[in-house]
């Protein structure tokens, strides 16, 4: 079992949700995050004074999948979230030891 984590542009969230749903993914979690990568921040000007905003708003997507589905889902996430411009974000995969569905107590792949 693996956790796919994506940091993506906020306006791509709906596209990503629809695309991975089509692959049979049953759930995902999103959260609003801020950070910087190569894109850096932006500048705002108030009465002539320039301020650099270092952290750019992004959305963090987390998807729990079976080992066999990892490449397919991660590839789809990468393709869907891509615009080709700087600031598209990153996707990475981390191993997960186990998972439970709280309602039924099922664990492992059955919990997905």
């Amino acid at each position: 079992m693996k956790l796919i984590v994506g940091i993506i542009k906020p306006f791509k969230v709906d596209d990503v949700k629809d695309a991975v749903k089509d692959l049979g993914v049953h759930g995902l979690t999103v959260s609003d995050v801020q950070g910087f990568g190569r894109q850096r921040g932006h500048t705002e000007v108030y009465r002539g004074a320039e301020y650099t905003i270092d952290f750019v708003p992004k959305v963090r997507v987390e998807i729990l999948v079976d080992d066999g589905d990892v490449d397919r889902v991660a590839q789809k996430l990468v393709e869907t979230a891509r615009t080709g411009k700087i600031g598209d974000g990153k996707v990475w995969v981390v191993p997960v030891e186990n998972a439970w569905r709280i309602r039924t107590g099922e664990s492992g792949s059955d919990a997905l």
Partner: protein
Amino acid sequence: MEINSGDTAWVLASSALVLFMTPGLAFFYGGMVRAKNVLGMLMQNFFAMGIVTVLWVLVGYTLAFGRFGDAGWLGNLDFVGLKDLTGAVDANGLPVLAFVAFQMTFAIITPALITGAVADRMRFAAWAGFIALWSILVYAPVAHWVFGGGWLADRGALDFAGGTVVHINAGAAAMALILLLGKRRGWPRDAMPPHSLPFTLLGTGILWFGWFGFNAGSALAANAVAAQAFMNTFVAAAAAMLGWLVVERIKTGHATTLGAASGAVAGLVAITPCAGFVGGLAPVAIGAIAGAVCYLAISLKFRFGYDDSLDVVAVHLVGGIVGSVLLGLFADAAVNEAGADGVFFGGGWGLFGEQVLAVAVVMGFSFVVSGIIGVVLKTGLPGGIRVSEEDEEVGLDLTQHAETGYALERV
């Protein structure tokens, strides 16, 4: 003397308009501070409506307007507690209490203007003490010199609605407090962007609206001079907005909402001394010059390193100087027989000289006496005039008032 009902109605309505400027100013400034200080800013302004009103009734009015027209330095105590004014009517048929109320709203907003300079770091107790002392020791005498027929008015200096009394006076006091308080923590390194520019724009609209009472009401009559002042006020604000935006667009690449708001206020400030003394296209010129000059004046705080947080010096002191000095050029006695002719209307440099003198005297007096009040409070008040570093970090709302402006996460 029979009461002139038209004039009385206009002065009473104008008093309400001018009072409304103080909440407008509160939101103009309140939008520009960070979210943790919004109540602190609103409270400093609203508190002015409380403390100054009571002081005005007790001693402020009589110190400013007692011994009216004596060409002197200060009023007297004839009208302490508004003694003998019930039912009194002046030589123009205006009930004296209408004049008292109108002038009271000026006395309220003038120190309120200073709040933008001390933003985010002044203790509320220190502000309360400062505004009380300042109203009596600075505002009342200066109002007497200019509005009360005191020595500056007697020399021939013109100030229709308060370029010197209100704006230069407040701007110079702001400078004194800026130097005594010091910079906000992290300024200018850290970004301190406005938390709600919609508030600032709303406040600007209220100020502009109320300013019609400020300037056109200063005719103290519903007459042609009032209509001229009304129109000049309108046009100068518009021209100054454009002047500011043009310079801003050239220098930074964008026309901003904060620039539009700031420009309009700069124009309103500059036209204030001129409102009932100029005509024709003069307000376009005065406004446009004020918009451009005040924008450029904002860079001074970065060059010299003083934290004029919301640009009270750049907008009110500089804008007040621009208007008061330009009046020496643009004044036209054909507009108002109580006025005079400036350089452009064949009046020579006499008026211009008086304007420069009035500017210098009011600026110097306000800076020095405000500074003395500030030093007395800084050394005499337990806790001084500035909040602790920790309180500054937490914000004025919680530390000074035990409240939070936006409790959205708790609903």
